[in-house]
């Protein structure tokens, strides 16, 4: 199991490393959105404190009095910016949904992805992912409702009456665990449903969701294990960012710029980690699929108009598992497991290596 997880993770890393252009896109968009909000923030600060010497005290470190005097005298200004942050978080979620299509599609390709293929993947799957999100939301609401009913009982049984902080925290922790574990599984199901949508070109979303559910629950140790590994690495990056922010107090141009660069490295690394995480899921799914793919070797591209050798001449070992209908045989197109016509695949030499079950 561990090998499976690390293998999928390794492949996800390789896929991400091939997709640096995509990661730059993700990072760039993140930088632009945050930059716009930050410039507004700067403008607000400057208009309130621009010519005051008070704010220069903050260069040496946070000053609670300067901060509170500013907040009290400018109550609405920062609220507007924080509201903007909330809106951009929502918009960012949709953008993230859009990008996931391209990331997952590129993850299953062995070719180096380009921006064109990336955005093609984004566009192809966005609507399906949106529908999938609605399904996820409905299930999440039902889950919250059920867990909410149970949470009081869970709290009471663990915390007793919560007479001490330790009891109260234990109760709260138990409730959180009861919420977190099902919710993370639900998020995984959603993630793998997306993977399946892309991998199987699934147009029926409920089926994709169902397959995702079956896959995650059947392979819970591997899927959850991979999730925890990616989470751990992400948390390490967040912790690094936090430690940098707390420990260092930049107060010169050099230290401020240097600190900025360090922080952006962490942000970039998190963008990379996201692609790794999504790609690893795709890799894990591909590696653990129950169906066996035959090795299909295609010598050359087959133009639409040309005729193919009859299917009976294909060696036994290369036969597809799936039944090819008579009608399809006549058209002499060979469908590989993903039911994608060869003509949609570029390149002259394509090898697909299948794994036999067991």
């Amino acid at each position: 199991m561990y090998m499976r997880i690390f293998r999928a993770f390794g492949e996800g890393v390789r896929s991400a490393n091939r997709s640096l252009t995509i990661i730059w896109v993700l990072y760039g968009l993140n930088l632009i959105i945050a930059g716009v909000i930050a410039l507004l923030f700067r403008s607000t600060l400057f208009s309130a404190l621009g010519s005051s010497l008070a704010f220069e005290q903050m260069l040496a470190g946070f000053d609670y009095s300067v901060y509170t005097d500013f907040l009290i005298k400018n109550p609405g200004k920062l609220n507007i910016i924080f509201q903007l942050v909330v809106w951009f978080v929502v918009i960012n979620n949709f953008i993230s949904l859009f990008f996931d299509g391209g990331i997952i599609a590129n993850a299953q390709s062995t070719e180096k992805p380009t921006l064109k293929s990336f955005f093609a993947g984004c566009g192809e799957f966005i609507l399906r992912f949106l529908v999938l999100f609605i399904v996820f939301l409905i299930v999440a609401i039902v889950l919250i409702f059920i867990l909410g009913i149970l949470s009081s009982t869970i709290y009471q049984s663990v915390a007793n009456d919560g007479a001490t902080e330790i009891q109260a925290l234990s109760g709260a922790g138990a409730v959180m665990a009861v919420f977190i574990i099902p919710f993370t599984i639900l998020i995984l199901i959603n993630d793998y449903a997306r993977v399946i949508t892309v991998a199987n070109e699934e147009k029926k979303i409920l089926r994709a969701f169902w397959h995702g559910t079956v896959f995650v629950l059947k392979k819970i140790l591997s899927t959850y294990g991979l999730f925890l590994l990616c989470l751990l690495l992400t948390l390490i990056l967040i912790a690094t960012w936090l430690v940098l922010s707390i420990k260092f107090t930049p107060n010169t141009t050099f230290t401020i710029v240097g600190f900025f660069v360090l922080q952006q490295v962490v942000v970039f690394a998190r963008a990379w980690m996201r692609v790794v995480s999504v790609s690893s899921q795709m890799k894990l799914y591909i590696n653990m699929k129950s169906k066996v793919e035959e090795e299909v070797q295609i010598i050359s591209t087959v133009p639409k108009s040309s005729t193919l050798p009859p299917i009976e001449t294909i060696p036994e070992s290369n036969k597809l598992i799936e039944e090819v209908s008579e009608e399809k045989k006549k058209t002499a197109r060979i469908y590989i497991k993903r039911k994608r016509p060869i003509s949609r695949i570029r390149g002259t030499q394509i090898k697909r290596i299948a794994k036999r079950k067991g």
Partner: protein
Amino acid sequence: MKRITSAIMILYFINPEAISQHKIFPIPLSPRIANYNISVTLDAQKKMLQGKETLIWKNVTRDRIRELQFHLYLNAFKDRESTFMKESHRTYDDSEENKWGWIRIKAMSIRGGENLTDKIEFIHPDDDNLQDHTVIRVPLKKPIKKRKTVTVDIEFEAQLPTIFSRTGYYKDFYMIAQWFPKIGVYEAADRVNSKKGTWNCHQFHSNTEFYADYGVYDVDITVPQNYTVGAVGILEEEQKNKDSTKTLKFHAEDVHDFSWTASPDFTVVEDRWNNVKIRLLTQPYKVGNISDRHIQSAKVALRYFHDLIGEYPYPNLTIVDPPLKAINASGMEYPTLITTMSIWGVPDNIKLDELVTIHEFGHQYWYGMVGNNEFEEAWLDEGITQYYETRIMDAEYGQKTSFADCFGIQVGDFQMARSDYISGNPKLAPILQPAWKYNAGGYAKFTYAKSTTMLTTFERMVGRNIMDTIMQTFFERWKFKHPTTKDFMNIVNDIVPAKLGLKYGKNLDWYFDQILSGTDICDYELTRISIFDVDTSKEKREEVKRKFNSRVLVSRLGEMKVPVEILMKFDDGKEIREKWDGQARFKLFEYSDSSKVISAIVDPENILAIDINNNNNSKTLEPSSLPFWKYTIQFMTFVQSILQSVVLF
């Protein structure tokens, strides 16, 4: 020997109680007007108290007193109709978890005299609420003559409430305060500026605390044997009874209240500072780091107050750390006993434990020994106590970090107090008004926060040495005597002109009147720096010397008027300090020089902590963009992190 005998004889005739009560203080510290002998039994099943009280009360005035007035504080919790519950605006319904409380006098009589039981009458000196039963009056057939003592025997029972505010129980934890019939304070005629004295016995309000005369307390407390008890005063004797209870005898001298706590779950931690025995009653799981913090901060407070104000005369200090669900009993002061607060799991660099312990100990000096009327002039206790709390916290743990230094956020205790004052509506109410007249939130804001800011500003005006002299004088002159704001002001007006001449005028009434009695705010602004280039080419043809006309405009935005200093900095490094009396709406300073003003600051030494906006106190023509970029970048990375973390779909 003869002299000593004579002294004792004289002492006996002046104060018969003095000889019999030479247990802690050979010479009484206070007038010992209200002395109590109480015997109480806690019924742990019914959560009730059965008590017998003997009150020995002295009429120290010249008046013939025709009635007695008592507080029955526990009746504040008897139902939703009491003045306290109506004013508290908190929901509290009788349920499994929440129980009402009350106190009932079963019998009252003058020893060797009339039976007063049927004469008890509820009164409402503060409002028309007939449902409020927290004050009674008892008319006397035979008035108490001047300088005479009366002994009143009272039998009472009390139902303890679940802890809603300060007193009551949670399961087996009891914090028993304001639990016995307590006589009010009869104030002499000269005290109330009247021909005749009067009773000062207010109803129990949501915002008020307490006021009582000093005396000696001898209290016998009977509790189940497995309970640990802490109380005001010292434990003289512990006796096990045959019915699985035990009786503890406590004795306290020169105090004006008696409270106690009991629980079978306490762990006791003891320590000592000089001659003071410190006894901490805490929860078992808090022994270790948390208990150490309470003990250490108590020692810090003992040391500071000993050095700054005067000696702590009592031999003991009891600190109670209530359990989590009795947190409403936390953060309270009683003579020689304080309840502190701690929350397990809160990191050490959030100094909540230290703040509460130091604050509550500070009350020992002001509430405990100076003993002002907390109903009518709460700031004299809470404001002065918080002033010292912020001073000690900032000195001990850092001016900018004394409350919190966590994840890069630093908050000083005084900074927090000041921001409590300036936030919301700082013009809502004056400091000097009866505590029950504050609207919601006003009591804490003005009695604590504004008073602290006022005193800190005053300290910065006159200097710390003079401030310490004032407070030491106030303490020494008025301990055990229930002073008023006027008494405090008299000391200020004696000392400041004597030390500083006419720097702040003949007296400081102009300062304190504005802040104590008024609602004006202080806000000085450095409005504008204007530079005009003066063409001097016609003046000197040999060398064209540039000259600038610099104008600095300072404005008074608030209504409060305080003299201020303004510091002007020129581009050639020169500095000029100007003084302004702060009376007019604005003041213009003009300079004609070869150098120009590049920055100016109103109140450069930051004396006016009471200024509600320090950010507008300065201006510069050459602002540095570095701090803005620093925080812009930090904010940007924060937003980047949020965008990456909050991805729900």
